[in-house]
């Protein structure tokens, strides 16, 4: 017998109350049933009629895309209002007549309009036929609206890049979502006509910047004319991005390259922040974010200069002598050489039947590691390369991030190649030849790198082996909550090498600039350390440089960091077909470094006289 501390009467009470609950419930259910009977039986025919002639159209309200700023809050991408033309097929009486009307009125391409009208999608949802209409065209359509049922003009925001070509490769561009993209799960909540990022951070941060579309319900009459509109769901603006670049430095870097092809990357070795990343030739993202005709596309894609290619992260070049930096680290760390041991250079290195030339035919004489770096002696590095073997070199190269993508937030980054015996077996199914080690030792042969990888590499050396993943986005501003989310720098580990090793190499790199191959990079305002490189394009060369057609001339490299004592910036310059690194690339790196030092207030550099820098623009203003 189970006992409760409740009396029988209370239980009885509960039963009575339960009975009432049942009665109440039945009443409510009957009322529900009556309501449904009223809707479905009594008013059923009326609602059926409504459902068959449902003349409310849901119109999507496109969200405002997030803005993009540089590290100091300078606006790089925003949205401007523009007019778009929409057509709801359900309300169109004669498709061909409408196409004819639109062609006459706006001069649209009839085949393009027809293609859009026949594309897959609901007849009830308005589809975008034309965007970026002029005010005149939009007014023209409005004034003829009564003759064109189903046509609607909508004010939308259009992506705008105030800087034009500036930082085009980083920002990327936007475009209408493609049929392939629509099938992908990450675009599930999007629809035909949605604007998504197609390149650059616009693409890699699309999810953040995209925002959420809203809806507007539009009541149309039997002729498809808009009668009444009401917002069902407001669109939610996308989040803003704050990039790590300083747009002033970016512009300087781009102007330095000018009409030449090449890339300049500048980053902060203490955080991996990319300060500038220029690639030339460039493009105007404003043009690409518009709807292009097939012909325009072909022109851009077939352009010999490949302007859409971001040479900084997608261009793969032999590193040339800049590769001697990781080689020197490897040689010291494996004790292949000591800092003072020397190699005799007579201008060539005999291996088997082949003589490998030094760039200086007369030779450098007895050279130690320091001299070998300062004067870029090839024979020294042939020798140590031969002693270490390709696999040891590959191990150190990989530690410095060669042969793999850096992971920067840009689409389609390339990884370059850090060859090894295993790599060749896998990629070419061939045995590694000993002679190939000798070419690789001076950064030729199979070795390829991107300018971004080289900037990161020299930054890592400058930072005594501590490296960060290069990054472009430092903060995301949540537009709904107003929170600024700062993204932390991403450490990539430390190179396992003695501090002494880095000291020796940085000393040598500083002397490269003061008395070595890169005296053209010598600056009066800041100490710079660096290494020149020349990447061979054509194997066989005859006669002086000037006689060779430009497209067979060598690429010029210069990688640098500054100030030598406490590095704040690391730079890689690659100038395609510009010949020797010391002559063509080093001055550009110096300009970038000096600009950065002037832009960013620093602890006083070597010359206390910061204001007295001999700059023509300023002195003329002063006078």
């Amino acid at each position, binding site marked *: 017998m189970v006992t409760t501390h409740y009396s029988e009467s209370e239980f009885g009470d509960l039963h009575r109350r339960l009975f009432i609950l049942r009665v109440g419930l039945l009443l409510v259910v009957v009322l*529900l049933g009556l309501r449904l009977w009223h809707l479905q039986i009594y008013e059923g025919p009326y609602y059926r009629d409504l459902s068959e002639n449902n003349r409310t159209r849901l119109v999507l309200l496109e969200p405002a895309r997030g803005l993009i700023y540089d590290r100091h809050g300078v606006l790089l991408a925003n949205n401007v209002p523009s007019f778009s033309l929409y057509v709801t097929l359900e309300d169109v009486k004669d498709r061909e007549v409408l196409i004819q009307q639109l062609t006459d009125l706006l001069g649209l391409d009839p085949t393009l309009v027809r293609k859009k009208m026949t594309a897959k999608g609901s007849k009830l949802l308005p589809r975008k036929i034309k965007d970026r209409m002029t005010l005149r065209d939009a007014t023209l359509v409005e004034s003829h609206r009564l003759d064109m049922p189903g046509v609607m003009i909508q004010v939308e925001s259009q992506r705008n890049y105030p800087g034009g070509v500036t930082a085009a490769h980083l920002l990327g561009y936007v475009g209408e979502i493609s049929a392939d993209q629509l099938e992908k799960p990450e675009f*599930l909540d999007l629809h035909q006509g949605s604007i998504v990022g197609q390149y650059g951070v616009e693409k890699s941060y699309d999810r953040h910047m995209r925002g959420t579309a809203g809806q507007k319900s539009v009541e149309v009459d039997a002729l498809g004319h808009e009668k009444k509109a009401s917002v069902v769901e407001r669109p939610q603006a996308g989040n803003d991005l704050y990039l790590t670049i300083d747009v002033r430095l970016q512009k300087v870097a781009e102007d330095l390259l000018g009409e030449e092809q090449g890339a300049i990357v500048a980053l902060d070795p203490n955080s991996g922040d990319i300060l500038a990343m220029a690639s030339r030739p460039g493009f105007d993202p404003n043009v690409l974010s518009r709807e292009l005709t097939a012909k325009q596309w072909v022109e851009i894609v077939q352009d010999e200069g490949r302007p859409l290619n971001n040479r900084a992260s997608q261009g793969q070049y032999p590193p040339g002598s800049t590769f001697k930096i990781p080689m020197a680290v490897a040689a010291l760390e494996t004790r292949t050489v000591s800092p003072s041991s020397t190699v005799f250079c007579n201008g060539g290195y005999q291996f088997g039947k082949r003589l490998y030339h030094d760039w200086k035919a007369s030779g450098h004489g007895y050279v130690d590691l320091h001299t070998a770096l300062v004067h870029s002696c090839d024979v020294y590095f042939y020798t140590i390369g031969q002693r270490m073997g390709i696999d040891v070199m590959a191990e150190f190269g990989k530690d410095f991030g060669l042969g793999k993508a850096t992971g920067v937030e840009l689409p389609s980054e390339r990884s370059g190649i850090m060859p090894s015996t295993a790599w060749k077996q896998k990629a070419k199914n061939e045995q590694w030849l000993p002679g190939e080690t000798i070419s690789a030792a001076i950064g030729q042969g199979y070795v390829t790198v991107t300018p971004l990888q080289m900037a990161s590499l020299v930054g890592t050396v400058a930072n005594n082996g501590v490296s960060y993943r290069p990054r472009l986005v430092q903060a995301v501003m949540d537009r709904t909550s107003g929170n600024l989310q700062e993204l932390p720098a991403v450490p990539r580990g430390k190179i396992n090498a003695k501090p002494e090793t880095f000291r020796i190499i940085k000393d040598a790199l500083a002397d490269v600039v003061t008395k070595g191959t890169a005296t053209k990079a010598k600056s009066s305002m800041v100490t710079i350390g660096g290494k020149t490189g020349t990447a061979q394009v054509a194997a066989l060369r005859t006669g002086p440089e000037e006689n060779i057609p430009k497209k067979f001339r060598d690429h010029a490299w210069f990688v640098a960091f500054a100030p030598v004592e406490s590095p704040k910036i690391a730079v890689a310059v690659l100038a395609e077909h510009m010949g020797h690194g010391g002559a063509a690339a080093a001055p550009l790196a110096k300009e970038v470094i000096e600009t950065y030092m002037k832009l960013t207030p620093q602890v006083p550099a070597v010359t206390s006289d910061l204001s007295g820098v001999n700059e023509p623009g300023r002195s003329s203003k002063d006078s």
Partner: protein
Amino acid sequence: MIDRLTENRGLDSFDIRYVALILAILGIGVLSIYSVTRGQQSGATPFYLKQLIWIGLGAAAFLVMWASDYHHLARFAYPAYAFILLMLVFVLFEGRTSKGAQRWIALGPFSFQPSEFAKLILVLVLAHYYSKAPRAGWLQRVIVPGLLVLPGLLLILKQPDLGSGLSFVAVYAAMLLMVGIRSQALGFILLFSIMLFPFAWEGMWGSLHDYQRQRIMAFVDPDYDPGGKGYHALQSKIAIGSGELLGKGLYGGTQSQLKFLPEGHTDFVFAVFAEEWGFLGVVVLLTLFVALIWLSLEIASKAKDQLGALLAVGIVAMLCFCVVVNIGMTAGMFPIVGIPLPLVSYGGSATIMTMASLGLLLNVKRKRLSLFY
């Protein structure tokens, strides 16, 4: 001899009618979800398959609850409530936001809604409280349990999740009516006012100006229907009404298939069903629900102790409330608050929670039969 009898009766409690009713309603749900979401996705797992997975998990929860002992469960009521309150606080800060409300906690690829589970735990808490507390003054009968409800209610309203918040109040009100309030007269007044509320509401709501309604709705639930122009409600009414007597047939619902009706697989699944199966289908579904609730009330009135009876009443109240309010809102009788139709609407947390509750109900029945007195 007694032992054997006990065991047999224990199994008897696994009421086949009860289980059949639940399965029938679940089946209607999966069918409607399939109908409205078919062809909408490419790549991702279709909704009806995911719903079947939820039902599988729900069945497991149902069996666990059925096999347990509600006396033991009630002992953990307060710690469980404290835990779920913590989860609700966590949701406010770390939760996943969808459609303007922060209700979900992400768990790997899934996300779950603590507010759903909070409802069942609240039933446990109140049943436990009333079965233990002396029923002396109004303080202990009304105010103290009210204070128990309050933190959970406020946290849920903050999300904002008006629907779950109202369910919380409904459970509390049902408990008050059953045991909290001594005077039967007062109880009756409350009961009738709740029953008449929908109709009174329609009169009141109908007499308000548009902008007044918008203000009220913006106040209680700013994110549901910002236009306040009743787009959802109208499309839902058109869907249900156009189903007429026999419906438009499976996949024939133009309202839902052409996406005029938003949320067709979740809160508005009843409209999808009503459009495709007509008034006849609606009568069948309502009958199934009434039968299920009837059997549940039977369990409540035959429970062997106060705790069991109160648990059963709380669960039934929760179920009734959701069914009535959901159907009422899709039929345009109530303002739209986000309440899913139990066992029919798509949703993992709600499906699992509802099935667990029904398992607990059956446990109340099992304990009555299995303990000899």
